[in-house]
């Protein structure tokens, strides 16, 4: 379990996040939503240890995040950033294999996992294609597969966490759906998933818990039905919206 306790972050007197309390339990999918500049990405950075909070603490499996050995942490915490500056012609499989760097499971097993991860994002056909020649969506899928390969198997060090920053931003509808299914599948294997996502309906469709950020504070958190209300959306996003019910899933449907 990854826990945020009174996390605050300010950079040169400018407060980005204030007193964030969160519990990311294993097997639970959490989506962080909020308007631009609300502090979504900053929160992810604190949760993965990339930045240190000004006050408060992030606690991962009972141990403060900054006390983890980087290599140990890398075996159970995978992070997908928004875009990668990779500028060299690695093949898709080579990129995905990099996800196995923190592990020492041997080439045979790593290759097996990398192939399975690439297949799970529908990218088997990219196998030998150079990264530099892929489309934006293909690149994002390969990077997703890399992070999945990183935390592919349960580890004795504790529960796994998957952190995704806008995983569906470059995807078409089919691949958005595929990503959400992958996320759910990992959650079923007791991985706790946290992601920043812009599309409120996608968030409602796959997350068990929504965290709505507004100006660095949590405006609301809980089940999608609790968070996605006309009043809150009006207040936080400054748009008037109607809330319906998804005909098949029963989850809230935001119509703007």
């Amino acid at each position, binding site marked *: 379990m990854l826990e945020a306790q009174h996390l605050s972050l300010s950079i040169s007197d400018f407060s980005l996040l204030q007193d964030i309390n969160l519990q990311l339990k294993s097997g639970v999918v959490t989506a962080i939503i909020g308007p631009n500049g609300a502090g979504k990405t900053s929160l992810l950075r604190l949760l993965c240890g990339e930045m240190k909070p000004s006050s408060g603490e992030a606690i991962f499996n009972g141990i403060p995040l900054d006390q983890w050995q980087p290599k140990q942490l890398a075996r159970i915490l995978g992070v997908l950033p928004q875009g990668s500056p*990779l*500028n060299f012609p690695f093949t898709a499989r*080579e990129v995905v294999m990099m996800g196995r760097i923190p592990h020492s499971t041997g080439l045979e097993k790593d290759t097996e996992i990398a192939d399975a991860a690439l297949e799970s994002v529908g990218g088997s056909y990219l196998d030998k294609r150079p990264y530099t020649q892929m489309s934006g969506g293909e690149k994002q899928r390969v990077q997703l597969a890399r992070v999945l390969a990183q935390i592919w198997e349960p580890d004795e060090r504790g529960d796994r966490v998957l952190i995704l920053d806008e995983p569906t931003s470059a995807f078409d509808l089919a691949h958005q759906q595929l990503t959400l299914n992958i996320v759910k599948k990992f959650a079923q294997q007791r991985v706790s998933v946290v992601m920043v996502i812009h599309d409120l309906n996608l968030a409602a469709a796959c997350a068990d818990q929504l965290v709505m950020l507004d100006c660095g504070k949590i405006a609301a958190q809980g089940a999608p039905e609790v968070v996605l209300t006309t009043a809150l959306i009006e207040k936080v996003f400054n748009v008037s919206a109607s809330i319906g019910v998804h005909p098949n899933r029963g989850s809230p449907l935001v119509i703007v």
Partner: protein
Amino acid sequence: MLVASVLYGLLSGAADISPSKIFGLFAFGHLDMDHRILQMIRLPRVLLAALAGACLASCGAVMQGLFRNPLADPSLIGVSSGASVGASCVIFFGGASLIGGGLGLPAIAIGAFVGGLLATSVVYRLATSVSGTSVATMLLAGIAITALSGAVTSLFSFFADNEMLRRISLWQMGNLDGADWSRVAAMALAVIPLILILPREGQALNAMLLGESEARHLGVAVEKLKRRLILLTALGVGVAVAVSGIVAFVGLIVPHLVRLLIGPDHRYLIPGSAILGAALLLLADTLARTLMSPAELPTGVITALLGAPFFVVLLLQQRQKIVG
């Protein structure tokens, strides 16, 4: 396995072909004189060229990884000129007594190492940001440092006497003509550990190419890695500059060719570059010796003549990528 066997093929090919060519050129009759020439002049020179080539090429490969940019090269981004200022400084202030004595080469090497280290750190700080390395900033920083180094070296030349002047300017052109066993030993002392250590960082360097924070999330101790690699490459380039002057473009061309042959994975790229770099500089040096024989061209002139057009082509490719 395929990559490994390709690498092995490359390895035995490169190492076999070049020395046999060199030996074929000079070992016709088995006269004593020939043997002595071989032993005292050719062999050290061949070894020195190979070692310097291996050193420059593997340092180039590492720098391109470190800067996350395939256009980084010790000579283009000012590291070689920084090293040359360090070395000129030692030649100038050390004076003839020091150079004549046995201490000369190590002293020059240390000067070059310090100069190279300073230049690398400055360029790295200037050119690298969270989002990667800007080619423009990197090359401009290189120009600035090269200009500054040029000015400082000119200053030394202005005050230098004739003998010293000739020494400085010849050496700046990049020359392997002073090869003897002590230089080979100095070069080997620096290069062999370098070539043994650098490929071990290959996996971490691969992760660095994904981005610094990505590498951190994969468990790489990024800050330590950067410091270690900057130190090692400055050492490599410093020693190479101390024994052979500025031999440009080897660090650019070779890793690029190797990447085309066996891909960008640093675990194979670094040893591959070392081998091909050795072969290439050896070839260039042989050309330099034989083209206008009995006169000798400076080796650095040959590599620059070959390398500069190559660099322009690479630059054009990059521009197309950015525009299109």
